[in-house]
């Protein structure tokens, strides 16, 4: 392709990635009665469906019988979501079904009756099955519902204050009852409300009062770790109408359909974060993605970056990426280019924002991109389902999407000013709370590369382990470490022996429970500090000490840390007069490699779950405890022995 061709904008370039035929295909399946049976293909269909078509797709998907769908896709996780709110909230179910299906998740929605959100929030715990999260959809009527004509800005202020106080106490009740994650939203202010005040000063006052209410709602997220507040303003700012007067008037559906669709996209990413499916790695193409032009043809001095209008747009895009990287997103490159030219451009180009050291791997070569993505995943020790891939080439995007369906593909087009919007259109990297581990992640992976070099230098794996100088510390986490402990349970998929996802309040609850221990695992070696890499959940049950769950970051596998942890627990059990240690392996789609872990550590299988023969219970009688591996130093503190052994 010549440069001139490369730079000719084509208005249809995104349309070509988004396939308008996807909805027709889905409809054909539905009409033929085959949509449930073919549910396995739905995710791929939705991945390239134009965003505007998703509500229509969701409408059909939501009508399928969930049990029938589950028979056809038994591995797809089902997300249980009660939906409550101020007004008619059922219209969110269709879009949410589609948005979750894009992530391979099935929705089991329970829609509350009109206007019942306060009762729903304050209902005592334990009355219903534990839900993954609850959506509480608020709108302008939440503030205006009790107003009588005539009203002034002061009346709205009073109403807003009273309503905020009511909602705050309902949210507190919901959180104190331990009913899990709650999703609220800010409420839009409509023009047909503001302009009922003709006094411009009062109208401004109304605007200020309204923002105070929304600000109060947003503050609930700071107050309660189990509350997320979706700000609708940025969604409306994208050009989405906030409401539709006839739907509001006649059906009391007070948020517009497109706004609910945008909200559903945000909600789906909250669900992803809750299920530990936050993406961790962003793999970028170079030519046309990070800069304009073709490096191989134009040379490092000739690429579009920095100078010129488009050059500035590419710089801006690189800044956005750097912003993501500063929050723990790992960056890598997969580019069809000569490695030396890429290295030179990244090192020497004066306008380059992202430098060589910002990337954990730069794969510049002529191999297929899906092979490069596999290679990067293997070297990072991460699954491809934690990858996002961005490229301007329709061909490369299509091929990666086809070869690696678990990778999220972001197609940027030939207008660099639109690159940031395309990358951020989905909240692929959304998480609940940044932890120190996120901020230090890139450094850790670079240290890991030095470890790998050392490993290649020594003769044997044992010599490598002996030379590492590994130090493992087990102790209860302090307050500041609870977020990281929660995150480990949320994000660890492989070495996660009972896969129990806990938010921060749930972790705190376990720590406070008598006879229950939460033990954080820290590791460091001569190359650096791994930080908090694992967690054990223990519980006294009479004379038995139970390991309810054990999760360890994949960064530190196969160094004896997992064995050291078990050795420490066994010794602790013996020292505190327990008769045995019981443990369990509960299978998940990703932890099969560790099904035999406890057996390898000297435990005896004692039974399986009648409902799930792959779930195995183990027992160790403490007679013969293998010592921790000799190549590491182990420090273990379990806190006070407050177990009730009577």
């Amino acid at each position, binding site marked *: 392709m010549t440069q001139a061709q490369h730079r000719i904008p084509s208005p249809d370039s995104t349309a070509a990635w988004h396939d308008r035929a996807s909805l027709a295909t889905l*409809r054909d399946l*539905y*009409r033929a009665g085959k949509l449930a049976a073919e549910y396995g293909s739905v995710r791929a269909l939705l991945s390239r469906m134009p965003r505007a078509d998703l*509500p*229509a797709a969701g*409408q*059909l998907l*939501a*009508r399928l019988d969930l049990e029938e769908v589950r028979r056809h896709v038994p591995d797809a996780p089902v997300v249980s979501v009660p939906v409550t709110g101020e007004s*008619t909230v*059922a*219209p969110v179910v*269709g879009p949410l079904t589609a948005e979750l299906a894009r992530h391979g998740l099935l929705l089991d929605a329970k829609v509350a009756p009109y206007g019942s959100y306060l009762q729903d929030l304050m209902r005592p715990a334990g009355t219903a099955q534990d839900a993954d999260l609850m959506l509480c959809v608020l709108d302008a009527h939440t503030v205006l519902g009790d107003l009588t004509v005539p009203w002034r800005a002061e009346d709205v202020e009073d109403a807003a204050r009273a309503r905020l106080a009511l909602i705050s106490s309902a949210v507190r009740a919901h959180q104190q009852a331990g009913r899990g994650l709650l999703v609220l939203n800010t409420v839009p202010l409509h023009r047909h409300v503001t302009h009922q005040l003709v006094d411009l000063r009062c109208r401004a006052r109304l605007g200020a009062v309204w923002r105070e209410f929304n600000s109060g709602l947003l503050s609930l997220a700071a107050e309660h770790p189990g509350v997320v507040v979706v700000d609708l303003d940025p969604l409306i700012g994208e050009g989405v109408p906030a409401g539709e007067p*006839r*739907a509001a008037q*006649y*059906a009391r*559906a007070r948020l517009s*359909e497109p706004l609910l669709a945008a909200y559903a996209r945000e909600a789906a990413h909250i669900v992803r974060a809750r299920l530990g499916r936050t993406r961790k790695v962003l793999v970028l193409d170079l030519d046309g993605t990070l800069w304009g032009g073709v490096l191989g043809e134009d040379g490092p001095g000739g690429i579009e970056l920095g100078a010129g209008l488009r050059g500035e747009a590419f710089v801006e895009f690189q800044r956005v990426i750097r912003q993501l990287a500063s929050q723990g997103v790992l960056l890598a490159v997969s580019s069809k280019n000569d490695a030396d030219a890429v290295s030179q451009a990244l090192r020497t180009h004066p306008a380059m924002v992202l430098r060589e050291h910002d990337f954990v791997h730069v794969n510049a070569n002529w191999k297929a991109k899906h092979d490069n993505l596999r290679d990067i995943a293997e070297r990072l020790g991460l699954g491809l389902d934690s990858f996002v891939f961005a490229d301007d080439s329709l061909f490369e995007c299509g091929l990666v999407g086809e070869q690696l369906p678990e990778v999220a593909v972001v197609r940027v087009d030939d207008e660099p000013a639109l690159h940031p919007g395309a990358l951020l259109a989905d909240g692929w990297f959304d998480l609940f709370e940044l932890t120190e581990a996120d901020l230090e992640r890139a450094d850790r992976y670079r240290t890991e590369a030095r470890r790998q070099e050392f490993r290649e230098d020594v003769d044997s794996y044992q010599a490598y382990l002996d030379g590492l100088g590994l130090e493992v510390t087990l102790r209860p986490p302090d307050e500041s470490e609870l977020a990281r402990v929660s995150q480990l349970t949320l994000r660890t998929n492989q070495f996660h022996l009972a896969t129990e996802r806990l938010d921060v309040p749930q972790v705190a609850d376990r720590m406070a429970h008598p006879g229950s221990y939460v033990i954080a695992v820290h590791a460091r070696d001569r190359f650096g500090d791994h930080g908090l890499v694992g967690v054990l959940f223990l519980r006294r049950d009479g004379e038995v000490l139970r390991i309810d769950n054990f999760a360890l970051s994949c960064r530190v596998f196969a160094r004896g840390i997992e064995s050291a942890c078990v050795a420490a627990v066994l010794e602790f059990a013996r020292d505190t007069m327990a008769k045995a240690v019981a443990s369990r392996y509960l299978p998940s789609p990703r932890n099969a490699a560790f099904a035999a872990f406890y057996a390898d550590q000297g435990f005896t299988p004692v039974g399986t779950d009648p409902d799930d023969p792959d779930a195995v219970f183990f027992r160790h009688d403490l007679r013969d405890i293998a010592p921790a591996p000799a190549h590491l130093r182990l420090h273990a503190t379990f806190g006070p022995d407050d177990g009730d052994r009577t």
Partner: protein
Amino acid sequence: MTTALAGTAEFRTLLEEELGLYLEEEDLDRPLDDFPDWDSVLLLRLVTVVEGVVGGRIPVADLLQVRTFRQMHQVVTDR
């Protein structure tokens, strides 16, 4: 009126493709109460879809008061 929805067959196709609601021709005269899946949420969706197809406004309040799908078809085509 555009021809896109002129006939009841087109209307039934639209109900099926957009709302996932399959109807035979004779179902058009049955009372809406016979269709437990039918609700105001589907009706709102129908308004959006039909207005997109015909490119104009349909009287929502009238639509909310119809008793059968045939009457619904008449409301959306009788403009």
